[in-house]
């Protein structure tokens, strides 16, 4: 039964700027739809939700699923008003491997996500406390880490070390940027070593894992926080589920690689509801205040 056939809708999981451009045929086949982008469908509980019911926290009013956020949305619910100052705002990627059509891939991603690359970095205050902040964006080529993501995060960490500031990184990533080849792999070591120096300086790094955090980002900075927070039900892991299934030919257990699984296995300190995150971060910063 498809009560909602034909009309357009958009999914929060897919990047909100990309709404309703698919062909009628495809739309009918894919999922139910409702008029004029006023409605959205939750990919978790499949409920059709009136868009105005979704607050700035981007939660499903039906099942409380935490939808994926862009850095600008994240800033709005995290930073004290008027305190955000962006770093390295103009950095853009090159094409180190001469990957065919990489320029077009980038251009498309920039239009879709409305930013120049997959991470936004800066400094701000949270509940009155100074901090450096980096936020990845899964709408930008799956939040993959290439040269720019690696360089911007590394610079943000180095900036924090030089200015004796804590750093908070919101992660979301499908892994390494394959189109940049081995150079994207090198970013893992680059960010990790910068965090090593920040750590040696006795400074605080809080990783906030959001859905999904996988691959080379998990295997570098996501897992290196002094404190590791996660949003509820976020997918967190090293290997992709299809890769694991292809390797071991077994069914994966219920809840595998979710935030709750990671907490149970000892890899996450706390799971924090998005509406409580700002307050918790503020408290953590205050508890680590220098001097």
């Amino acid at each position, binding site marked *: 039964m498809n009560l909602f056939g034909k009309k357009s809708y958009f999914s929060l999981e897919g990047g909100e700027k990309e709404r309703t451009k698919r062909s009628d045929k495809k739309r009918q086949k894919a999922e139910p739809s409702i008029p004029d982008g006023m409605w959205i469908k939750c990919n978790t509980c499949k409920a059709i939700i009136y868009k105005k019911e979704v607050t700035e926290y981007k939660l499903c009013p039906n099942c409380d699923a935490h939808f994926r956020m862009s850095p600008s949305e994240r800033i709005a619910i995290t930073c004290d008003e008027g305190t955000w100052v962006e770093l*390295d705002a*103009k*950095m*853009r*990627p*090159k*094409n*180190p*491997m*001469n*990957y065919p059509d990489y320029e077009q891939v980038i251009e498309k991603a920039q239009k879709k996500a409305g930013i120049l690359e997959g991470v936004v970095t800066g400094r701000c205050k949270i509940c009155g406390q100074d901090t450096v902040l980096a936020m990845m964006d899964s709408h930008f080529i799956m939040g993959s880490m290439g*040269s*720019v993501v*690696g*360089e911007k995060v590394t610079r943000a960490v180095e900036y924090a070390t030089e200015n004796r500031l804590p750093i908070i990184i919101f992660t979301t990533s499908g892994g*390494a940027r*394959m*189109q*940049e*080849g*081995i*150079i*994207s*792999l*090198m*970013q*893992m*070591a*680059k960010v*990790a*070593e*910068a965090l*090593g*120096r920040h*750590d*040696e300086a006795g400074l605080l790094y809080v990783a906030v894992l959001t859905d999904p955090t996988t*691959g*080379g980002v*998990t*295997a*570098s*900075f*996501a*897992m*290196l926080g002094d404190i590791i927070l996660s949003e509820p039900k976020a997918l967190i*892991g*090293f*290997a992709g589920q299809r*890769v*694991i299934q292809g*390797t*071991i030919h*077994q069914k*994966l*257990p219920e809840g*595998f*690689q979710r935030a709750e699984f990671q907490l149970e*296995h*000892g*890899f996450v300190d706390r799971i924090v509801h998005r509406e409580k995150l700002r307050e918790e971060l503020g408290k953590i910063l205050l508890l680590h205040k220098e001097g």
Partner: protein
Amino acid sequence: MNEAMKSVSIVRKIERPNTRQFIDAIFNDFMEFHGDRLFADDGAVVGGIAFLEKMPVTVVGIQKGHTLEENVACNFGSPNPEGYRKALRLMKQAEKFHRPVVTFINTAGAFCGIGAEERGQGEAIARNLLEMSRLKTPVISIFIGEGGSGGAIALAVGDAVWMLEHGMYSVLSPEGFASILWRDSSRVAEAAELMKMTAKDLLKNEVIDRMFPEPKEGLENNLDAVAAELKKALLETLSKLMEEETSLLLENRYQRFRKFGEFVES
């Protein structure tokens, strides 16, 4: 077949000399140590102490087998988290006793399985990257075969990174690249070439510092010749690095990895 694909098939040959053979051919009195002190002993990672001529060293490497039985014992050269943690334990031990570390890399990648995820494969690799970057003793990493992604770099944050002529190092396998980016597994050779995963390409972009030629008759038929070259190079380089001020050693290692990345700012 292009050059890259030739190297891919050479390093995947089952008779390709493995880490244990290189250890035996280069070092004396190798004494193997087991376990990560946390969970288990991973057969995919071999480690211990040995003499390089008169110099005590710590040696750690990823092990592949020549037979099915050997490969089952070493999980086909794909470490679980306990393998990376064993490696780190031995490297920290080396730091304590001021021994240099030599790592051998030969893996298709870190193991992808339920247990590996339960025990934090991502955390284990991440921790190695951070701790290797600040290990207060020289580290030399040698790629003797496959160098698959995060599972390889987890042992390769070295002061010098070397590679045999047919060694390779990439962000994922050419098969994975072709099937994920092009959804066409028949384009493996094209992917291997595009990915610039051979020693020659990696020398150009400074991912590796030095390439060691392999004998025409095949590495498996003349391992001693290559081992002798490696031994000579290790002695030269390590005695230099052991003389260096620790702060300079660490700064150089930091800059070695800090430089990677291509971007524009305007």
